[in-house]
């Protein structure tokens, strides 16, 4: 299994463990990830306005480069995944956007949204299989773990098609396969406050507080996420529970963390 891999800016700086543990786990599971050469920032956040073109160009560059390579772009940061998948959908389905992007970038072959954007969790679920991962676990993680999805992996479900947007299960199944006990919080798909942590930290503290509250009340020892911004908000704006990346626990369970 060989795929192009898009790490994203935050994984090179503040979220190095998300990246490092993903690479170690992928290797242990026989998944070959080639970092996309010369990738740039995905844009950080998807802008919904149809006439916002320039903010989406770097995502199209990455998507187009992946088309010319393996045809599948694997992401792990929830932010990058949301941006890349939604921009890809725009290229595929919005002629207004598609025409302007191709006019500007002028690729040798017009980019028409051919690349498949796959989150690492989807790859584990659909192409490796949780049963297969379970067989390779050498250090079962015996903790009560609350999966936190946030917004970016799930919504809008019409485009992301990641899981049931109101009752997702992929992270719960992941927790089970690495030997943990999933703690289901009803707040697991609510927003942590996202980028308002920069403009209004008290808002992010309020939203993150409600999420951590719910995890504490349901008896979790630990929260897992795929998003560096969620991790920051839940820890920095609240901090009652440790919050780690799901790849950290995967690498630990597979015995390849150090």
């Amino acid at each position, binding site marked *: 299994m060989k795929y192009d891999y898009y790490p994203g800016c935050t994984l090179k700086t503040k*979220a190095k463990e998300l990246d490092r543990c993903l690479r170690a786990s992928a290797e242990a599971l026989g998944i070959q990830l080639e970092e996309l050469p010369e990738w740039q920032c995905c844009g950080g956040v998807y802008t919904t*306005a*149809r006439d916002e073109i320039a903010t989406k160009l770097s995502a199209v560059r990455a998507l187009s480069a992946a088309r010319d390579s393996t045809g599948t772009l694997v992401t792990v940061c929830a932010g990058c995944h949301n941006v890349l998948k939604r921009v890809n959908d725009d290229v595929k389905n919005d002629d207004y956007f598609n025409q302007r992007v191709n006019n500007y970038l002028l690729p040798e072959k017009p980019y028409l949204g051919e690349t498949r954007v796959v989150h690492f969790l989807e790859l584990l679920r659909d192409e490796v299989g949780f049963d297969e991962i379970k067989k390779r676990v050498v250090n079962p993680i015996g903790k009560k773990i609350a999966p936190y999805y946030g917004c970016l992996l799930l*919504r809008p479900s019409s485009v992301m098609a990641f899981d049931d947007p109101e009752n997702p299960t992929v992270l719960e199944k992941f927790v089970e396969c690495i030997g943990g006990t999933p703690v289901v919080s009803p707040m697991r798909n*609510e927003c942590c406050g996202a980028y308002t942590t920069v403009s209004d930290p008290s808002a992010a503290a309020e939203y993150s507080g409600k999420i951590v509250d719910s995890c504490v009340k349901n008896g979790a020892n630990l929260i897992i996420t795929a998003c560096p911004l969620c991790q920051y908000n839940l820890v920095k704006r609240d901090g009652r529970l440790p919050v780690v990346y799901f790849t950290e626990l995967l690498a630990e369970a597979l015995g390849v963390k150090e």
Partner: protein
Amino acid sequence: MNDIKKTTEQLAFMSGAVTSRCMGCGKCTASCPAFDRMEYHPHQFVYMVETGRIDKLLASKSAFSCLTCFACVERCPRMVEPARLIEAVRLAVERQQGGNRLLPDDVPCVIDDDMPQQAVVAALRKFTK
């Protein structure tokens, strides 16, 4: 402020939101984590654009509280997509001279050593044009 009718048409194009579909159930506002921080709530954005009262929306800070979490879009039974409309209103404000909410010079004062790049880039993208 520019011609209200033209600005309303522009908001409709940018957002793709069809406000006439709204049946006023309020599920968007009930789903919104930020509704209590907004002077005008998500369902009011839809109603005010539909009835051409956008001058009040453009003068309000409400759009800057939106998290673009898309809970309202996901849960709307009529596919009105309020978050897209709110983003269009915010951009209409920011695209005017002096409309930026966060300036690059403000950033060093609000970041800390742990804040991910993603947060800063996203905030600048959302609050600056």
